């Protein structure tokens, strides 16, 4: 898993991400993020990287 900066325009990405949630209920918003995770996971593909991302996300939330 890489954690060095890989997104060329971090502020632009964040803006687009929150814009996608505009006007959605909490439930619809959470649904959107779940779909987004799936689409991004398929871009990564590599199982070892995916498992490390899952573990890291879980730790950060705990």
């Amino acid at each position, binding site marked *: 898993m890489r954690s060095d900066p890989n997104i060329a325009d971090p502020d632009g990405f964040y803006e687009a991400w929150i814009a996608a949630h505009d006007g959605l209920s909490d439930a619809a918003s959470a649904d959107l993020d779940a*779909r987004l995770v*799936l*689409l991004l996971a*398929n871009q990564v593909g590599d199982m070892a990287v995916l498992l490390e991302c899952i573990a890291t996300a879980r730790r950060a939330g705990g």
Partner: protein
Amino acid sequence: MGAPEIWKFAPAYELPSWPFVAPPDLAAAERRRYPVVIAGGGLAGLTLACDLALRGVAVVVLDEDDTVGVRGASSRGICYAQKSLEIFDRLGVYEQIRAKGITWSVGRTFSGADEIYSFNLKDESFSEQPPFINLQQFYLEWFLVERIRELAPEAIRWKSKVVRVEHGNDGAQVEVETPAGTYTLETEWFVDATGANSRIRDELGLEAHPSRHTDRWCISDVRFKTPFAVERWTWIDAPFNEGRAVWQHLMADAVWRLDYQMDEGADPESISRPEVAGARLREQLGPDVEFEFVWIGPYQYRDHLLDTFRVGRTIFVGDAAHVVCPFGARGGNNGIQDAANLGWKLALVLAGQAGDALIDSYHHERHAAAAENLRITSRTARFLAPRSAAEHRLRRAVVALARRHEFARRIANTGRMAQANAYPPSPWAPAGATSLQNVAEQGTTVMRLLGAGTHFLGLWLGASREQIAALDDELGQRRPLAVHAIDANGALACHLGAGTGTFFLVRPDAYVAARIDSATPARVAAALARALGREVEA
């Protein structure tokens, strides 16, 4: 409102029964000793008995009942996978199964009213047998019983209940209760095929790690005639079942198995009342389809996996050793495949052509297969029964994306259909072992080449007659091996994925034990010795 509908029930299946015949043991002054005794005449026990009978082993089957199937119920297993069908071809019951059963290869999965993915198993098939045939389990057992009676008329002992087993170092002593009295027999190898609730297993105090799932289902086996496709249809969330899962599959005699996922808290008695089950069917079929019930059966699934499939001279096969959730037809098929894995090993050990350690390979290979099946079916079960709002959300994401994106279709999981499990590397097959399909080649097939005896096949791609003769000369006649030259451009070579010069050592259960890129007699002899669990000769 019209009058309430009257629900029709089909007459019960007429199952055959066979008479109890007093065995010679009852009158014998001394205990008789047998090479193999099998307790339990279900799918695994009967397949093993048929396999052993065909190999010339004097097998005895002890069955409590005098018929096949489960009294008062419909079929248990319904889907028989290619590997099982290939085994049945070798055993001589395949044609009956094909003629009576329903051949299929296409599966479709729906969410709401939309199809979200489909598969055609025919695409990966090289075999003479189709990917699947559906058939009520008791028909299969019936065909096996008749075949065993042809091969060994006295082998199956009906109304014979195992009441006590003494497990010893050189076999077992088995006390059997019959209508004509009780007797004890001795056996070199004792096989427990008595199913999920095996007392033989429990009395040995073996750990089976059972777990019970809370997901609740209700089967309706129903006879009707409609132009439904002869395919496996599954719904993740059917609009006609309050958004829960549904299975739709055809069996013989125009009987459809419709299996409905129920609310977890549902009362099994009320969901299986004819008027409740009938109303569910009306939701699915509409008002005009005439149908009659064959059986209504509520169930919850469970699983277990025994730590060891062999304890001394006692061996566990089928449900006695492992039970998985029913998704993907990985229950009965694996009992059948346990039997095919074990039969040739017992035959060779009894004939002195292999050491006792070969039986350990049965545990090694079939335990690994069962563990894999447990993992695969548990994942399906979890997809079908999300346990929290968060899990529902993740599944919704998969289903939503699956409508448009191929990658998400692969994650949607209404069952991964049973395949012949690959076996992990072992002393007997250092590179692991994979199943060879029953490919037709030069007027014969893999199963016909294996025939009724117990020998390995050497498949030598592009070899000349002289090379084969030279190899046979070097190896001698006493080895259980028949070497054949195979067309390097033919269907078998294509399935094996190799070209001229490559030699494949195929076991009697049609698993490839070794691939030898440039075959010499010494290399072939070493691979064969290894596969038999013998010391490799210098």
